[in-house]
C-alpha cells in the first residue's frame, strides 16, 4: 500500500515584522511580508521524512488568498510531489471551526492517509486546527509529535508526543492527523533545480468552497467565535539599566531580593 501524505501549511505575516498602526492601535499586518508559518516548515520535513520511509506521495495544501501559491511553490521546491490551493472569498472570517472543516474535506478528497501540520501558526497561535481536522473526519490524531515512525505493515503511525514532564509513544490507526512540535524536524534545504521548477513550471490545483461542497458551512456566519475588542496592552515598564560590572548587578539584585 502506498501512503498519501497531505501536509497543511499556512501563509502568515512575518512575525518579526508586524507593527502596530499608531493611529488605530491595531495590528498592521499589511506592512509585514507574507511568509510560510515557521512551524509548517517542520511539518513539511516530517511529511517528507514519512515519505522517505514508506511508499507514497506528499501533497501540500493551503487555505488562503491566491498569492499563497508562493508557499506552495516553496513546499514543492522542498520535495512535495503536488500542491493544492484552497481559495475562496466565502472563507473570509472563518475561525478554527470552518477552517478545520475545509482542510478536513480537502484532506479526505485527496485520499489522505496521514495529514501533517505544524503545531500552531505564528499569527493566530491556536493550535486548534490539526485536532479540528481529525475531529471533523473522525480520524485519529497525534499532536506535539517530536518523532514519527510510520508502520505500514500495521497500518498505523507511531509518534513520540511531548507531554508535560516527559513523553509518550502513541500508535494511531490511519488516517491520522499529526501536528508536529516546533523545533523537532530540521527542514531540509530545497535543491536549486526544484526551486526553479517550483517557481517557473509548477501550478497548484485550485479548489473553492463549492468544489469541496462546503459553500454554506464556511465563513464568518458559521464561525462560533468572533473577535470582540482588541486592546493594545501597554508594554511593561522596565528600568532598562545596563550595568558594567558584576558587582553593580549583584547590588541591584540584592536590592530586589532583600
Amino acid at each position: 500500500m502506498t501512503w498519501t501524505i497531505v501536509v497543511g501549511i499556512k501563509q502568515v505575516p512575518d512575525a518579526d515584522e508586524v507593527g502596530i498602526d499608531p493611529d488605530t492601535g491595531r495590528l498592521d499586518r499589511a506592512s509585514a511580508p507574507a511568509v510560510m508559518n515557521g512551524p509548517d516548515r517542520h511539518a513539511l520535513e516530517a511529511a517528507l521524512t514519512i515519505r522517505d520511509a514508506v511508499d507514497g506521495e506528499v501533497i501540500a495544501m493551503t487555505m488562503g488568498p491566491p498569492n499563497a501559491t508562493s508557499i506552495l511553490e516553496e513546499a514543492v521546491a522542498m520535495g512535495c510531489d503536488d500542491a493544492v490551493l484552497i481559495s475562496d472569498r466565502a472563507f473570509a472570517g472563518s475561525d478554527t471551526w470552518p477552517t478545520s472543516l475545509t482542510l478536513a474535506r480537502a484532506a479526505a478528497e485527496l485520499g489522505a492517509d496521514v495529514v501533517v501540520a505544524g503545531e500552531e501558526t505564528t499569527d493566530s497561535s491556536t493550535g486548534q486546527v490539526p485536532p479540528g481536522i481529525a475531529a471533523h473526519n473522525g480520524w485519529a490524531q497525534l499532536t506535539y509529535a517530536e518523532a514519527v515512525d510510520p508502520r505500514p505493515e500495521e497500518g498505523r503511525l507511531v509518534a513520540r508526543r511531548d507531554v508535560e514532564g516527559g513523553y509518550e509513544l502513541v500508535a494511531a490507526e490511519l488516517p491520522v492527523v499529526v501536528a508536529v512540535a516546533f523545533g523537532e524536524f530540521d527542514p531540509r534545504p530545497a535543491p536549486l533545480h526544484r526551486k526553479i521548477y517550483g517557481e517557473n513550471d509548477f501550478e497548484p490545483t485550485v479548489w473553492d468552497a463549492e468544489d469541496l461542497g462546503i459553500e454554506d458551512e464556511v465563513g464568518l456566519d458559521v464561525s462560533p467565535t468572533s473577535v470582540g475588542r482588541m486592546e493594545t496592552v501597554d508594554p511593561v515598564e522596565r528600568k532598562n539599566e545596563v550595568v558594567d560590572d558584576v558587582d553593580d548587578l549583584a547590588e541591584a539584585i540584592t536590592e530586589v531580593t532583600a
Partner: protein
Amino acid sequence: MTDDGPAIDPGEYEDVWVFVEEHDGDVMPVSWELLAEAERLTEQTGDDLVALAIGEDLADVAEEAIARGADRVLVADDPVFEPYRADPYGEQFRAMVEERKPSIVLIGGTHTGRDFAGRVAVPAHAGLTADVTEIDVDDEGILQARRPAFGGDILATILCEEHRPQMATIRPGVFEAAEPDPDRTDGEVVEVDVVVDDAISEVLERSVGDTADITEADRIVAVGHGVEGDLEPARELAEALDAELAASRAAVDEGWIDGARQVGQTGKTVRPELYVAVGISGAIQHVEGMNKSETVVAINTDPNAPIFDHADYGIVGDLFEVCPALADRLGDEPIQEVVQ
C-alpha cells in the same frame, strides 16, 4: 457527525465546567487554578461550579475537587481512559456536553488539554478560544475570553454569542489555585455513563518524571540557547539565589532541560519577584511568559538582544563568566539569610 443545524438556544445551557486533568491520579496544577477562577465567574452568574474528571479510580480526585470549591463533580471512571488518548476522552466529553449542556467549559492549556478540546468543540459546534490569559463574564453570561496576540502587545477578546458551550483553553500559571478546604464535603459526586468502548489510538509507552511547577517560584533563573548545553553556571546562580531553573524553548528543544520548565507562549506563565534570563535572546514568544515578573535581569553577550528591552537590569557579558562571578557575590551577601 457535525451539527450544522440552526443556532441553539443559549438559555438552555447552564453551569461552568472545569476539566480536571489527571494522569495516574496526579492532577495538573492548572486544573485547580481554573477551578478557583471559575468560582469567581459562578459567583457572578449564579451558575453551579462543576468539575469533571475522566480517568480511572477518581475518588480522591473528586474529593479534592469538592474541597477546592466544586458544587458537583462529574466522574467518568473506566480503564479505557487510562492513560489519556484524544479519541476516547473527546468522545466521552462530547457525550457529557450534549447530555448536560454546560454554558462555559474551561480546559487547561496543557498539551493534553489543547489536544482534546477540539475533539469536543468540533462535533458540538462550540466556540473554542485558545490559550486564554484572562476571563470574565458579562451580564448576559457571555464569556469574555482574552488572549494575547503578537507577543502580548494586543489583547483580543474572543466571544461566542450564538453557540454553546463557550469553551476556552487557558494557559497554565496565570491564575492562583485556592487552598483545599477539608471541611467542604457537601459537593455532589455524579458517576456518568461511560459511552466509550473502543479507541483508534494506543499508548505504547509513557514516561513522565519531573513535572516541576515553576509557576510557584519566587525567583527564577532561566537558561536559553546561549548556555550551549552547560547548565552549571546557571545552576550555581540559581543556588545562590534560592531560585528555580527555567528555560526558553530553544533550550528545551535541545533537550538540555525538561519541557515542564519552559516559559512562554507555549510554555508556562511565570510571575516571580526576580527573573534572570541567562543567554536568552528575548523572542516575543518567550517574553509573553515572563513579562509579569516583578524584576527582570538579563545576561547576554549581544548588546542588541531584545531581552534588554524587557529587562530592568542587564549586563552585556559572557554568561560563563558572569554567572559564577554573580553567584559568588550573591553567595557572600546577607541575601542568604533574607531568603529563609
